[in-house]
């Protein structure tokens, strides 16, 4: 969470976050609030469009998008936009999408364990997928 604010000339865009992002917490995490943009689209279609615009704009360091589901075609478009704009795109989806294919470079499954989060790397372009030990954080 704490990354993304390091680049001095870039914005952070959160699209359709599940709850209201809480400004004091973000400030605690070191996110520069002045460069954070929250977008609340009315539909998934608009969310995807907004993500594509933000990714391709060249002013964003990272674009975080929360969605219930998408199709492959849109994922490809987002990937192209991210490459064109030089931005990091992160899409949060429910765990049930884990078996679908995706053009993303990195796919991560996060599950909540008894005491800590588990992370499984589902796909790593040019690397080896597998579980990650977070060291009980």
């Amino acid at each position: 969470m704490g990354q993304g604010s390091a680049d001095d000339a870039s914005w952070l865009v959160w699209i359709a976050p599940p709850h209201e992002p809480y400004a004091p917490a973000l400030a605690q995490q070191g996110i520069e609030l002045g460069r954070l943009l929250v977008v609340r689209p009315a539909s998934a279609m608009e969310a995807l469009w907004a993500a594509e615009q933000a990714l391709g704009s060249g002013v964003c360091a990272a674009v975080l998008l929360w969605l219930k589901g998408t199709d492959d075609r849109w994922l490809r478009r987002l990937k192209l936009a991210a490459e064109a704009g030089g931005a990091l795109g992160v899409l949060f989806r429910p765990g049930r999408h884990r078996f679908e294919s995706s053009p993303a470079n990195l796919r991560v499954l996060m599950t909540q364990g008894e005491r800590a989060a588990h992370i499984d790397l589902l796909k790593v372009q040019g690397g080896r997928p597998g579980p990650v030990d977070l060291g009980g954080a």
Partner: protein
Amino acid sequence: MKLRAKSRTADLFAAPEPAARLEPPAAQCPAEQRPAPPRPVQTGGMPQIAGRTRTRQLWYAVVFPELSDAAHSAVVLQRLCLHAQTFTSFVSSEPPNALLLEIKGSLKLFGSLERLHAGIDACWRRLALPANSATAPSVLAALWLARAGHPAQIEDLGTLPGQLAQLPIACTAWDVERLQTLRAMGVTRLGELLRLPRAGLARRLGVAAAQELDIALGRQFAPRRAFVPRERFRARWDAETEIENAAYLEKALEPLIARCAQFLRERQAGVQALRLKLRHRTGPATQLHLGLASITGERCRLLDVLIQKLGRLELRAPVRSMELISGSLQPLSAVSLDVFAGLTGTGGRDTAPQLVERLRARLGEEAVYGVASIAEHRPEAAWRRVHELSLAAVRRVSEQRNDQGSGDGMPRPVWLLDAPLPLPDDLILEQGPERIESGWWDGRGVARDYYVARQHSGARQAAGAKLWVFQERQSKRWYLHGMFA
């Protein structure tokens, strides 16, 4: 008295307000009065001490005793300024009920001061507006004479003290307290006031009052804000045939936008709002309102936003003509030019305001916002949405961040619920309590103990998730208020 000038640097004092320009007819500009930023063309830092080529000025002051209602008079004064501009280019309004005209440059045109003075007076008579006017070589002297109802026409600075001496002190419009101090001292006329030792005067009445006396006597000059009429861009385009397709409208819009951008460039101004009116053969016109994230005069940005908006529009009926109307013109200051230059990526194709505008044009104004934290104990009141993108907001927020950086011991959750949810009490408390008790004064008081907690694994959802919960101290009930990511 020496008022020789080095250069005319009027534009250095351009005020940031939309409809006002400050001209410094002054050898001295008190710094505390005018912290105006320079215009972009002059890349100086601080406003410099302004000089003036004309060695003397002549001020015509007019007071309208019937204008007393402050809200109404502001509008009337604006209109009267327009009338006054027939006589001189430099008109300044003095709320609530006076106008000041610098008429030195107009003397030659009108032949003599008497004729000019009579000409301006006749203007008010035609408007059936009772007016007291006076002319003097200093701004305040003219204003004070007019307020006192002395229709004097003084051109010579030397006779000024004698002319002012008979005026009652009330004509200065100083506050009641000052005037009472003076009356207690036995001072009722300006002449008596001028005879008092200056140092003692400054001590008793304040430096500002002593300075005003200097200004009235022409020993010191005061810069004035010039009246600038409100301008808007307005252009109309009539279709040869009725247009049903929005794509054709876009084509027709391009030249209109180009003219608007040209108009703005000539005035070194920008707009923050635009209106497009589409007229149909029958029925009311379709109005499109556009808000921009920052002041701009750039053709591409204006066009970009309008086309986005047009793209979403469903035409009710074919369009016969359209009209583009700009919002009020705002000066493009150095600040508004540079704000986002530093914030955008170096090789980026867009700027941040452009992105925001594009998103807003399609998703709606309210759907795109920033967040800022506020120094406030109640968690739900410690943040707010920020809708305008401005450097000031960015700064304010980042300063706040620095303030908060180290102080808070207890963590805050990334997600805050709109309203706290009641919780069963099978929680594992991990951190806390942090007592928050605040807000009793505005009726939304809270008295809570906050904890960082985890839910038992048996729970249906969010098992093991890190939660931000609180126990209300009165009811002893538990609520969920946020979640850690």
